[in-house]
């Protein structure tokens, strides 16, 4: 059976290679892919959508419908992780706390513990003391990472970037915070519910913008219908509409990244974790 599997893989690989011989040359300007649609996009993107970055306009406008569902795929992944992994936190009989000033470890029964206390620190099974250097350094860089993320989102019109990339950077900044401190601190600042609701909201911004165009009497996702709200003429409205949906994508991607991290790193308990 194993040999059969390997033979099948080999056969597939050989077939792929053989038929790839018939491909047009790499970067051939005469190939169907370069002569059929590309010239239209290169010539018309600016006058159609007022976006200098052709990739962004193809992604979020000409084929914006695909991108809406790509965002939905990400949300689906978040929901799937939640549905499969999330389990209820068990009642824990006792927990260990560390009294910071003295370094004494105490065992306390039940959940009896002064909330928001500065001197007691809860210890997990895999507890390690905060590394001062790491946590401070991360605190220093995280704001810059987040500003860069916003820049990437906003600058998708002109340079490589956009909602997906910016959202991933933003999500990574929160995950970095969770790794450099601990999962609990990060959940305290950005709760699971927030993550879940934000991920839905992000997709809703995208699909809702499309549905709004329907309400204005145009076809789904035709941002030029939104000219009265967004200001500018119908072409500028497309450009602005792209920004709105890119923000939606960024919100969704950020929140789903964080949500998936919470569930994966704590095996669904969201109590103790990395």
């Amino acid at each position, binding site marked *: 059976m194993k040999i059969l599997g390997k033979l099948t893989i080999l056969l597939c690989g050989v*077939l*792929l290679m*053989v*038929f790839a*011989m*018939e*491909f*047009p040359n790499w970067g051939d300007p005469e*190939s*169907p*892919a*370069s*002569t*059929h*649609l*590309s010239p*239209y*996009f290169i010539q018309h993107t600016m006058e159609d959508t007022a976006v200098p970055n052709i990739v962004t306009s193809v992604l979020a*406008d*000409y*084929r*914006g*419908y*695909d991108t809406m*569902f*790509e965002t*939905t*795929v990400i*949300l*689906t*992944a978040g*929901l*799937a992780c*939640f*549905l*499969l992994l*999330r389990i*209820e936190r068990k009642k824990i009989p006792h927990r260990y706390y560390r009294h910071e000033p003295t370094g004494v470890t105490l065992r306390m029964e039940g959940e009896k513990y002064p909330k928001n206390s500065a001197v007691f620190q809860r210890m997990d099974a895999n507890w390690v003391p905060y590394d001062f250097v790491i946590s401070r350094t991360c605190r220093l860089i995280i704001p810059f990472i987040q500003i860069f993320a916003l820049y990437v989102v906003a600058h998708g019109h002109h340079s490589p970037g956009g909602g997906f990339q910016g959202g991933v950077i933003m999500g990574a900044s929160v995950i970095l915070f969770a790794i450099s401190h601990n999962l609990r601190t990060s959940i305290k600042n950005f709760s699971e*519910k927030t993550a*879940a*609701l934000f991920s*839905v*909201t992000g*997709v*809703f911004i995208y*699909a*809702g913008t*499309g*549905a709004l165009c*329907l309400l204005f009497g*145009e*076809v*789904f*996702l*035709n*941002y*030029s219908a939104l000219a009265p709200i967004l200001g500018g003429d119908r072409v500028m409205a497309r450009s602005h509409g792209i920004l709105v949906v890119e923000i939606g994508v960024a919100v969704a991607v950020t929140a789903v990244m964080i949500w998936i991290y919470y569930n994966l790193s704590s095996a669904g308990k969201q109590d103790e974790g990395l």
Partner: protein
Amino acid sequence: MTRHLPALIIVIPLLSALVTSGSGWFNQKAPFRIAVSALLLSLLCAVLMLIQVVTTGIAMEYRMAGWAGPMGIVYVIDHLSAIVLVVITSVSCLNLVAQRKNIHAEFKDKQGAFNALYVLFTAGLIGMTATGDAFNLYVLLEIVSLSGYALIGLGNTRAPLATLNYLFLGTIGATFYLLGVGYLYIATGTLNMAELTTMIPKLMDSGVILFAFIICVTGLFVKMALFPVHGWLPDAYSQATPAAAGLIAPLTTKVTVYILIRICMTVFTPEYTFDHLDISGFIVLVAVVTIVFGSLSALAQKNVKKMLTYIIIAEVGYMVGGFFLGNRLGISGAILHIINDAAMTLALFLAAGIFIWKTGGESRSDLKGLFAKMPFTMAGFVLAALSVVGVPPTCGFFSKWYLISGGVQAGNYLFVAALIFSSLVNAVLFFRLFEIAYFEPFGEDEDHAHGHGNSHGSHHHVGALAIKEAPLDMLVPFLAACMALIVLGLYSGTIITNIIQFAIPTGVI
């Protein structure tokens, strides 16, 4: 308003899935209600579109974001997609209504996520059916697959392993399809199905097109569980919870067969698929092996749900074989069987869901004495079973009739023999169940024990048993599905002459 129906049918479920998921954090009853109303609206859109397409005879076209043809993404509702859309939305809606209690019992605090994934799965299927863009189809296939894995994965203890297998094979299938679309794009420079149709005839001898066809169709075969690549299906479907199995089992394989028909007829044109390539005979042979294998494996199962999953595999063989006969009768039969088999599988899985809900077991012997206990459920089950066997006037008979006529016309008697063999095996399978349910006495279950014990509080006498039917909100959708089997059977002539005839290109004789 009618102009926007092709968008509304998918936008409504998508937006409601988002609201459903959010509302689950505040209220555990809202998600179910939102999901049901969204699916009902979607069903309404599908029916309206079917009526419009049938009365005007012209396919509806919808340009997403306002961009035409190859630049943007176009949705096309023709006769074939309109009828499949009605099937998808009605099956999904009926199953959700029927499974309210099951969902409530199994996903206590996660109803938001479950209902959202359920609606997203349906929306994905709707999009796959309505789209006129080969790449958009892949994006929606991703949504369907991902939400499907999640829905199946939360079944009984062995479900995660079955889902992992499904995930591996399903990903291979989807990737093959994507590779095929990539090859098509390299050869033609477009992703629009209508434009591909006009381009393929000029490129018939191109090796890239040939490989695109092979790899697309192979990917779809993996996704629909044709014989050598069927391994993921029985475990995945039988380990899933009834709520998920009742959605996924009737729809996934059937919609994949629809995609196969769409790809072969609309993208690659019938001339290329049937005349230019000499593969039809081979694929029908594979389908025959699938039918025989599925039927024999079903015969070997003790578990009722597992038996049903092997019947699904055999039915996939019916449709693929019928389509690749390449004549009008065979293709009509395959399309009609998409509709009928979705209804039959829904009825069977709803019945299985009710049995599990009432008896707690999945094995054949758990059906003992159910005719006396649940007469209505069993009547519906008998109807569904007769339809799978192919007894008139149920719908299963008519699609099988078309398939067999197609086989005779094509001179492919092996396929005809496989169909008849499979019907006989199905008869044996189901009558064995009826025998257990009708003749075998009850075991020493709680009713008896109760009757012997404290007699003053008990309504039951020894040997006599009150009817203990399934709850009404399970029973009514189930009986509706069973009635649909009869209605589909009685109107199958109308469906063929008014809808399916126009779904097949005129070039196919």
